[in-house]
C-alpha cells in the first residue's frame, strides 16, 4: 500500500571496472557490457516502480467506477436491496467503518505490547539457540491460513474465552465496554483476540529485526554509563526501534483491517455504532461483510459492496500516511542521519 520508489541498493549495480580482463579490448568490452547491464537494471527497477503506481491507480479507478452506481443511486433504489440499512451508501458504510476500526484497533492494542515483549526477548534476552527457535516459531504463525485461525477461533477459542468474559461482565460490567455479555462469545472482543494472534507474527518479526539492528555502539554507550540491561533497552534499543515498531504496527493494522475469514467465522454481526465489546450482534467489519453478502449480490447490491470496499481502501491509505507522518515527524532524532 505504501508507495515509495526506493533507489536500487548499493552494490547491486555491476561495477564494470573491477573485473576487466588483461587486454584493453577485454576491458572495454567488460566496461560496455557493464554499462548495458546498468542500463537494463535501471530500466527494470524503474519499470517495477512504475508498475506499482499503475496497479494502485488501476485498483482505485476500478473501485470508483464500480461503486459509482451505488454512490449515485436514489434512496428507493438502495432500499430495494434486501439487506441494506440506511438511506445512502454513507449511512450504510458508517457502522461498518466503525466496526472495522474498532476490531482492528482492539487487536492492535492486544498484539503490540505482546509483540514488543517477544521481540525484545528474542533480540536481547534469550540465549542464542532459544532465540533462533522462537524466531522460527513466530514466523510459522504467520504462515497459517486465516481460515484456520477462523476455525480455531470459532471452535476452540470462543469456549475458552467464555469464562473470562463472564467474569469481566459480572465484575467490571459497570463499565459500559464490558456490560451485557452473552454466551457464546461471538462478539467483537473474540474477533479481536483472533486478529491479534494473526497480526502478532508480522509485528514481532519486524520489531525483532529493528531491535537487532540497534548499533552496538549505542548499546555499549548505555552500558558504559552504568545501565542495567533493561535500562539499556529503554535508553538505546527502544528509541532506536521506535519508528520500526510503528511501521510494524501499521503493517499489522493493515492486515487486521482487511482480514475477512477470521472475523466472518467468529463474530455475530450487527450494524450499530456500539462500544459493547462483549455483546453479540453489535458490530461488523467491511471485509467480513463483503464476504458474507457477495455470493447472493447482483447489480446495484454488488455496487454497494464495492463502495464499502472503496471505503476500506481509503482507510488503509489514511492509516499508512498517518504512520508515515508519525515517523517523519521525528526523523531527525531517528538515528538514520
Amino acid at each position, binding site marked *: 500500500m505504501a508507495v515509495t520508489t526506493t533507489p536500487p541498493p548499493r552494490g547491486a549495480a555491476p561495477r564494470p571496472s573491477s573485473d576487466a580482463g588483461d587486454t584493453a579490448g577485454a576491458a572495454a568490452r567488460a566496461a560496455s557490457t557493464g554499462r548495458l547491464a546498468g542500463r537494463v537494471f535501471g530500466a527494470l527497477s524503474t519499470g517495477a516502480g512504475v508498475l506499482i503506481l499503475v496497479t494502485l491507480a488501476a485498483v482505485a479507478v476500478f473501485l470508483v467506477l464500480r461503486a459509482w452506481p451505488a454512490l449515485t443511486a436514489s434512496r428507493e433504489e438502495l432500499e430495494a436491496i434486501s439487506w441494506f440499512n440506511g438511506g445512502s451508501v454513507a449511512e450504510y458504510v458508517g457502522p461498518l467503518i466503525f466496526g472495522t476500526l474498532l476490531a482492528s484497533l482492539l487487536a492492535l492494542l492486544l498484539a503490540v505490547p505482546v509483540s514488543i515483549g517477544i521481540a525484545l526477548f528474542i533480540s536481547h534476552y534469550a540465549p542464542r539457540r532459544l532465540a533462533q527457535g522462537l524466531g522460527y516459531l513466530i514466523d510459522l504463525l504467520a504462515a497459517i491460513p486465516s481460515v484456520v485461525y477462523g476455525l480455531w477461533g470459532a471452535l476452540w477459542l470462543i469456549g475458552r474465552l467464555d469464562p473470562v468474559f463472564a467474569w469481566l461482565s459480572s465484575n467490571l460490567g459497570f463499565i459500559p465496554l464490558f456490560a451485557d455479555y452473552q454466551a457464546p462469545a461471538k462478539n467483537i472482543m473474540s474477533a479481536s483476540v483472533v486478529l491479534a494472534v494473526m497480526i502478532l507474527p508480522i509485528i514481532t518479526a519486524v520489531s525483532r529485526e529493528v531491535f537487532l539492528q540497534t*548499533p552496538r*555502539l*549505542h*548499546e*555499549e*554507550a*548505555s*552500558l*558504559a*554509563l*552504568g*545501565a*542495567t540491561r533493561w*535500562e539499556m533497552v529503554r*535508553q*538505546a534499543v527502544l*528509541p*532506536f526501534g*521506535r519508528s520500526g515498531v510503528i511501521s510494524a504496527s501499521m503493517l499489522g493494522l493493515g492486515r487486521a483491517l482487511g482480514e475477512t475469514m477470521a472475523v466472518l467465522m467468529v463474530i455475530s454481526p450487527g450494524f450499530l455504532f456500539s462500544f459493547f465489546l462483549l455483546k453479540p450482534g453489535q458490530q461488523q467489519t467491511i471485509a467480513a461483510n463483503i464476504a458474507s453478502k457477495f455470493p447472493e449480490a447482483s447489480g446495484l447490491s454488488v455496487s454497494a459492496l464495492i463502495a464499502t470496499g472503496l471505503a476500506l481502501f481509503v482507510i488503509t491509505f489514511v492509516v499508512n500516511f498517518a504512520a508515515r507522518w508519525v515517523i517523519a515527524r*521525528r526523523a*531527525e*532524532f*531517528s*538515528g*538514520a*542521519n
Partner: protein
Amino acid sequence: MSNRIDVSDLDVYYGDFLAVQGVNMTIEARQATALIGPSGCGKSTFLRTLNRMHEVIPGARVQGKALMDGQDLYGADVDPVTVRRLVGMVFQRPNPFPTMSIADNVLAGVRLNNRRMSKGDQQDLVEQSLRGANLWNEVKDRLARPGSSLSGGQQQRLCIARAIAVKPQVLLMDEPCSALDPISTLAIEDLIAELKSQYTIVIVTHNMQQAARVSDRTGFFNIAGTGKPGRLIEMDDTSTMFSSPREQATEDYISGRFG
C-alpha cells in the same frame, strides 16, 4: 576525588582463547596513563576489563585481580553496573544517542540512577558538564537539537561530557581521536590535560605522539605472534619510555621500526 587502580596477574580470555596474559600495572590517581602497542595486542581488551565492559562480549572473562583503592572490581558482591558508574568510558567512534537532544545526552547517565532532579539542577549539570568538555560555547544555543547534528569532534566531546556528568572516578578512553581530524584531536588532547586534575584517565592510542603529548605514564603492550596472548612489556614515566626504554621491543616500536 579519584582513585588509583592496581592490577595484578590479570589474564583475559575470550572463551578458551587467552587474549591478554599476566598484566601487572599500577594506574596512578589523577594522572593520564597511555596504553600503546600494535593492533591486536590486547590493549583495548585490557582497558575494557577496568570497567568490566568486556563482559558484554559473550564468553569473555578474566582471572587475576583489579583493585580500585583496595576494592576488588571483580569481587563476588560487586555489580558490574556499579563499577561502570565509577569508571566511565569514551569509545573509539563518537556515539551520542541519536534519539536524544544534546542536553538529554548529557543527562542520560544521571537519569539512569533514577535520581529525581529539579529542572534547575539539570540545567546546571548540563552546563557544568559541557563546560568541562569544552563544548558549552559551541552548543549553548542549540541544546534541544539532536546530538547527531554535531560534527565528529563535537560529538566526541559530547560523549566526554556525558561520561563526566555522572561524576566517575576514572575515565577510560579507547582511541578517542582515531575517527577525528587533527583540529578536533587537538581539542580532545587539551581537554584530557584539563580533566586529569579531577579524574584518573587511561587512554588507549595508536598515535605515539599523542601518548607523548597527553600522558604522564605509558604502558607498552605487545604480542609475540598471531594467536599468542598480548602482554604488558614495559611501563614507566612517559618521558622515560620515549627517551630511554628498558626493553628492546619498546625501543623498536616507538622508533617506528615496526607496528
